[in-house]
């Protein structure tokens, strides 16, 4: 069994064990009043069984994996991916304190840059356009949007 598959199956196994122990502590209840832990306990148990089954199968016979090669992630790409993910996280955390305008401007710049606009000035430029356009669109174009969206834009 390929190394990656082994890692994944072990991960499922670990997850199953975690779920089972947590559920047990929640309380399985009695059979006529099933407790909150019963269902996740069963599901976790299935995780464990299935992972063990897969591991067993791998140990017993050497089956040629017909699954495709895991695509390697080049160094440059990992950097880009991390940048995007980190920026998105930051966006979620900073949106409320800093407001729509600043945060969206920066995240859009990052995204434009990451998706292929090589020069920062272009990325910033497009980002500014998007932010300005959406801001005016949403604030002056009527209230037919969920209040959540309006709050997102700093209104209400």
């Amino acid at each position, binding site marked *: 069994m390929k190394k*990656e*598959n082994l890692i*994944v199956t072990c991960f*499922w196994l670990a*997850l199953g064990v975690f*779920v089972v122990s947590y559920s047990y502590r*929640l309380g399985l209840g009695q*059979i*006529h*009043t*099933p*407790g*909150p832990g*019963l*269902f*996740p306990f069963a*599901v976790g148990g*299935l995780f464990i069984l*299935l992972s063990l089954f*897969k591991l067993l199968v791998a140990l017993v*016979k*050497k*089956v*040629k994996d*017909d699954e495709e090669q*895991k*695509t390697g*992630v080049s160094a440059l*790409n990992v950097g*880009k*991916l991390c940048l*995007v*993910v980190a920026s*998105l*996280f930051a*966006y*979620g*955390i*900073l949106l*409320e304190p800093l407001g729509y305008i600043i945060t*969206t401007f920066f*995240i*859009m710049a990052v*995204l*434009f840059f990451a*998706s*292929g*606009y090589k020069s920062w000035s272009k990325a910033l430029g*497009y*980002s500014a356009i*998007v932010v300005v356009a*959406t801001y005016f669109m949403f604030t002056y174009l009527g209230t*037919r*949007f*969920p*209040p*959540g*969206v309006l*709050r*997102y834009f700093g209104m209400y």
Partner: protein
Amino acid sequence: MDIFGGLLSGFHNVFQPQVLFYCFVGVFIGTLVGVLPGIGPVGAMSILLPSTFGLPPATSIIMLAGIYYGAQYGGSTTSILVNIPGEASSVVTCIDGYQMAKRGRAGPALGISAFGSFIGGTFSIIALMFLVYPLAGVAVKFGPPEFFALMCLAMTVLTYLTSGSVINAVFMVLLGLILGVVGMDPISGMPRFVFGCTTLLDGVGMVPVVMGLFGIAEVLTNLDESQGKVMFQTRVKDLFPNLQDWKRSIGPIWRASVMGFFLGILPGGGAAMSTFLSYTTEKRLSKHPEEFGHGAIEGVAGPETANNAAAGGAFVPLLALGIPPTAIMALLLGALVIHGVTPGPLLLSQHPEIFWGVVASMYIGNVMLLGLNLPLIGMWVKVLKIPYRLLMPLILLCCLIGSYAENESGMSIVIMVIFGVVGYILRKFHFESAPLILAFILGPIMETNFRNSLIMSDGSFAIFVTKPISLILLIISALLFMSTGFSTYRKTKTKVIDESESEG
């Protein structure tokens, strides 16, 4: 109940300029709302509710209902174009719809989806007219054991959704079930897997999960590959489904209409269930099942028809009994109450104009939607030609707005990003997201009904086999499960035999 007389009077009431206008407004907003990921019909309906106060009750319900089934039409657009489902009932459309778009066949996909939605929607209204009262009784016969059995069937069917390894699909289903557990337990009130985060008290949230697993993960996957690559074949083959497409789709459409309507009657995930039941049925019936997952048009025609048929079916318990089967229907019920109409079994006799008005408007609404969506196909296909590096950030912005708007919490965005990373990793290891999402949505229904059944039977498992509907559903699930098991077993066995023969 004089059906034709009622229907005629319904049409008469609907063919007034004001009513037609509001019907159109409703379906138009519905389509918009369905297309924009994250903003669902419930949100739109609840905002527009106050603006209906000055209108007669029938007109306001017509408009609100229009938003609902309009959203079913629009939801497929994003599923096909960018692999982001608008809502639960559009998840299955992503599987083959997006593949079709990648192969330059976005037009036919959108087209068959619009036509299928129209046929499914119209069929369900006709069925609604004739069967509303007899069927209402059926909906009520489903108690906790029956629902649990139905969910077991659903889980088994979910494993068919995959075009890859079945065991991987099972892992995804189990993972989805666990995710569904996160949050406050509805029966005991205890928080589960919450780890002290108040945001998680109500569960992980469907919108951030869907947008993360589909939207963000897709973006991350694309970023991973070569830069600046335009993801779609620029020469779009044709704009509309051709004769070959129609021949393949007509069967799935009819089957899905029936399936969707009947499943839509049941409370809970009726619409979503009907989509993947239809997908699985078509996959099993098809002469080329290996095409599914790579752009088989049946995989779009069936589910899209099913979800519109289910929307019609959902009106059955509401109009006949005053019991709304889903949150959206509950909103319609609330709207009726606010207008001074008490929905219930007496709706037809006390307010026939509402009943027939709504039914008549649904016919007209479906026609309007077809008229709206078909010309838009040309426009949507052009959208695909926008360079990806410009399109991607805009799509992400929609996802960000969508996931924030649901709860006005930045945490939803964080959750969405987490699931984006998870989805990206899952894709790398060849796990598919569709079974996960659907199990996530249906899992809580399954668990609640399982526990309630045991409470009702004082702990005896016999309740699942003594009730006829429950027993039948469980037998079907078991049969399906065993048949999958057998075919997987045989496949691995032949693999091993081949291996040993080539080595021996």
